């Protein structure tokens, strides 16, 4: 009898999570929980100013403090050729500043001491003399002619420009605009936001002089990339480097880049021959590590008067901070921004992007998104909202008219992506029904009479998840495949390792479910391990919703290889030829006699004890998966708000999320991801952002200024599901971890703007804090959030 797939924890089971067993007991193993014998502690001294020449650094007083073992400065790093390191985007970044500091919070010196308190004390004792330079806090200042060149360390650096990039068919787009009845425009700023996982970054470097081996425990979402980079930077042989990512307290893209702290701790361990632990404090994390967004988006849409979209143009101006440290596929300078409008049938499109250096923290990471798609989809849905209004059309009907229809797949977007599946109209219908769209207009009218401002915001999108196929996607030249290795023990229990890196997604639980689905081995019988480069197969790690699309596919593929070998063993055990054998979950049987069969466990035992003549013993294999395409989940989000006309405070009345991420491995986990993403969307829409004053002081350097919603503010969510399997993924799954962060913000903003629509307000830049909404309300004007801000804004 075939097994009941749900009972064995296979595909579709809301299996309770394996990792929870240790977390709920307080027995997680995060970097800061690890103690090595003889371990020293490192603390980083950061620059208090945003742009200055370093005139001198005096560390002598730091050495006066008992317990201080070593103080490192840029000069000492430079002597070992380690003052600069490469970024993931082919730029360079200072490890410890030598010539200048280029943003507030930049690493200037490091103290290694017996205890973290002593290291902190000693940092205070270091005297640095700065000569301040003009500060640039937005790209418009950066592009002014004659403005201070931030990256004077680079030869042939043209002013403060990082790149200039374009894609799409300009001529065809110009033609579409020439033929348009209506041209609708939108201009906005997607503010800088920090992923801010609860756990900050940190590392413990442990260099063993006797063996020559370097082990680094660290907070990395992509340990194999780190190994490759450390081999490059520290000039150590790759087999002598072991990177271990233990449990991560969240990542959200923040833990993809390689940070100076990691590199400094490595050198410190080499010099002291002791393990060196560095745990960043929250301010350090917020002001120096990979941020997301900070893009100015501007564009227009060519429309026929009946509502048909004819073409779109978009220009982005992005702020990358002092070093171009984006984590993204190298071919694309502004991530996958050109996936914008992928769910709409638009014949012509063109995108121009320019990036600039500023005196702000470096980054531009994929903050819970697939490389800038959050900005792309935010602009898209804000633009669509404005266009519908300009045409006098209903928001939902305008979308429906232009969404790619079910029978148009595979669909080639104007920018060249191939979307392959979806039921966009169906998702829209489900969402409209759930939010009560029918009666809403009347309700809004009626409420306005009572002085209440109601609004509904819609956001629909498909996004490219699962980078990606080797033709197009690489980071530092390494193709973005992923991997899995499966070993079935003789008792039919198994261990699975992948090149992905869990940071809360539940891989230990869900990968085992894929094995259960493919082999009929109960999920409880499968151990899952990730994050140790000495044992895990090479993979590109977890970010950009790529785990299920890429590593998850590798898990299915390796399980199929195992099944193919097990089939040969089954034929041997059943004494029939392989062609006469059938498979049902967990069991091979003889086609002519279903009663005669052997289980996968029987085959596993035989692989070690009774294999056919000439067969290699054992039952293990690996798979490297190069995905044929990205996966394209679809999301339709609806938000209903009420704005208080007296104060500008807005309340969320209802949130409806309809997600189609294909086949769901573990529905409970998928829903958890969606709710987490919706919360970050709400956060960005309502309160969470980083800005800078005109001296380059980061406002948002701690949780008193960088506001994150608590359980009290966060609204409840109503989730709905549509399943359109991915046609090329082995189990039909699509990425999902980030859909809600990507599509969510526009739904909130559209709702508030809808509530104020009758006043002529087209845009309020996020976060829509009550003062901004109030200003829009009372002036009827658009509100821009471009820095610098005056303190107290």
């Amino acid at each position, binding site marked *: 009898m075939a097994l009941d797939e749900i009972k064995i924890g296979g595909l579709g089971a809301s299996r*309770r*999570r394996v*990792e*929870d*067993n*240790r*977390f*709920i*007991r*307080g*027995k*997680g193993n*995060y970097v*800061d*929980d690890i*103690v090595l014998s003889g371990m020293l502690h490192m603390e980083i001294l950061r620059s208090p100013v945003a742009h200055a020449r370093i005139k001198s650094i005096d560390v002598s007083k730091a050495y006066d403090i*008992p*317990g201080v073992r070593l103080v490192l400065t840029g000069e000492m790093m430079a002597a070992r050729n380690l003052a600069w390191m490469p970024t993931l985007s082919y730029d360079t970044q200072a490890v410890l500043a030598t010539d200048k500091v280029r943003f507030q919070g930049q690493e200037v010196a490091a103290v290694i001491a*017996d*205890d*973290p*308190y*002593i290291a902190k004390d000693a940092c205070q004792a270091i005297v640095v003399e700065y000569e301040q330079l003009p500060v640039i806090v937005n790209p418009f200042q950066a592009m002014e002619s004659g403005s201070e060149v931030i990256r004077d360390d680079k030869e042939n650096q043209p002013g403060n420009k990082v790149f200039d990039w374009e894609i799409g068919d300009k001529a065809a787009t110009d033609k579409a605009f020439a033929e348009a009845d209506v041209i609708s425009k939108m201009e906005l700023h997607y503010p800088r936001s920090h992923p*801010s*996982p*609860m*756990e*900050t970054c940190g590392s413990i470097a442990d260099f063993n002089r006797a063996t020559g081996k370097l082990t680094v425990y660290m907070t990395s979402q992509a340990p194999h990339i780190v190994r490759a980079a450390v081999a490059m930077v520290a000039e150590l042989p790759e087999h002598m480097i072991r990177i271990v990512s233990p*449990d*991560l*307290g*969240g*990542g*959200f893209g923040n833990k993809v880049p390689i940070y100076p702290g990691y590199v400094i701790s490595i050198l410190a361990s080499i010099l002291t021959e002791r393990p060196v632990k560095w745990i960043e404090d*929250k*301010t350090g994390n917020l002001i120096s590590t990979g941020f997301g967004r900070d893009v100015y988006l501007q564009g227009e849409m060519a429309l026929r008067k009946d509502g048909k979209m004819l073409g779109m143009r978009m220009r982005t101006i992005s702020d990358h901070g002092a070093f171009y440290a984006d984590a993204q596929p190298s071919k694309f300078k502004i991530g996958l921004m050109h996936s914008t409008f992928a769910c709409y049938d638009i014949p012509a499109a063109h995108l121009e992007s320019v990036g600039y250096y500023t005196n702000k923290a470096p980054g531009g990471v994929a903050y819970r998104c697939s490389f800038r798609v959050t900005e792309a989809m935010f602009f898209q849905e804000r633009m669509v909202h404005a266009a519908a209004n300009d045409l006098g059309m209903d928001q939902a009907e305008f979308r429906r008219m232009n969404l790619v229809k079910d029978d148009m797949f595979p669909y080639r977007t104007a920018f060249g992506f191939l979307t392959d599946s979806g039921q966009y109209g169906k998702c829209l219908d489900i969402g409209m029904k759930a939010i009560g769209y029918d009666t809403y207009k009347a309700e809004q009218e009626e409420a306005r009479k009572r002085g209440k401002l109601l609004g509904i915001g819609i956001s629909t999108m498909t996004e490219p998840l699962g980078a990606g196929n080797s033709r197009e996607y690489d980071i530092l030249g390494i193709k973005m495949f992923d991997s899995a290795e499966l070993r079935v023990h003789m008792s039919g229990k198994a261990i699975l390792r992948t090149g992905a890196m869990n*940071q*809360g*997604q*539940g891989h230990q639980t869900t990968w085992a479910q894929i094995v259960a689905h493919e082999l009929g081995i109960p999920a409880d019988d499968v151990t899952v391990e990730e994050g140790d480069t000495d044992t895990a197969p090479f993979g590109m790690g977890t970010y950009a919703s790529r785990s299920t699309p890429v590593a998850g596919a590798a898990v299915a593929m390796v399980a199929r290889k195992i099944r193919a070998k097990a089939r040969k063993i089954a034929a041997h055990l059943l004494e029939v030829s392989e062609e006469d054998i059938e498979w049902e979950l967990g069991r091979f049987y003889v086609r002519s006699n279903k009663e005669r069969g052997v289980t996968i466990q029987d085959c596993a035992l035989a692989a070690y004890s009774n294999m056919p003549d000439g067969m290699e013993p054992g039952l293990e294999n690996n798979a490297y998966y190069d995905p044929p395409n990205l996966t394209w989940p679809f999301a339709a989000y609806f938000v209903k708000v009420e704005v208080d006309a007296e104060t500008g405070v807005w309340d969320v009345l209802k949130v409806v999320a309809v997600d189609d991420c294909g086949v769901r491995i573990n529905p409970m*986990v998928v*829903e*958890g*991801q969606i*709710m*987490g*993403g*919706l*919360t*970050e969307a709400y956060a960005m829409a309502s309160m969470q952002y980083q800005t800078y004053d005109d001296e380059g002081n980061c406002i948002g350097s*701690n*949780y*008193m200024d960088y506001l*994150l919603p*608590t*359980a*009290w503010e*966060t609204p*409840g*969510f109503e989730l709905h599901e549509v399943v359109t399997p991915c046609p090329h993924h082995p189990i039909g799954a699509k990425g999902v971890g980030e859909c809600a962060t990507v599509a969510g913000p526009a739904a909130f903003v559209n709702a508030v703007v809808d509530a104020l629509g009758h006043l002529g307000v087209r845009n309020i830049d996020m976060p829509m804090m009550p003062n901004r909404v109030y200003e829009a309300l009372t002036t009827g004007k658009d509100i821009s959030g471009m820095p610098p801000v005056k303190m107290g804004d």
Partner: protein
Amino acid sequence: MTSLYDEVQAAPGEGVPTRRVTIKVNGEDRTVDVEPRLLLAHLLRQGLKLTGTHTGCDTTNCGACTILFEGRPIKSCTMLAVQADGHSIETVEGLASASELHPIQEGFKEEHGLHCGFCTPGMMLAAKALLDKNDNPTEDEVRWALSGNLCRCTGYQNIVKSVLWAAEKMRAESK
């Protein structure tokens, strides 16, 4: 006796003052010599090796370090170890008995109240403080009781469900 300095360094530096404190941790008296400026969270994590208490911020905002101090939830990053002298505290490690999970722990697993797990110990202790006083809270009461604790992963909805699940179980058990 456990000494913090036995754990983290050979001996206190010269001239560094220390104080001897005794704290009842999860029902057991622990006596340690500490520097007066040592934060309770750091004593728990580094000195007593109870690493289930996490620190997630520098400004008393995140609640990852929440423990129960004489039954009340407090942020252990904002209390000095010496202030806990003579008091009784409970950490996540004290929630389960050898054989059985606390209903709150079960609830978090059952209702998927955690992703990365970093906020979880603090969340569970804040929840325990609530349920010890009120075993039948409304959703709003749960949200309010947890509003000193940040979670970046879950969006709170399932955390709230976890606590309500635990409340129901605790009510059933006390009948």
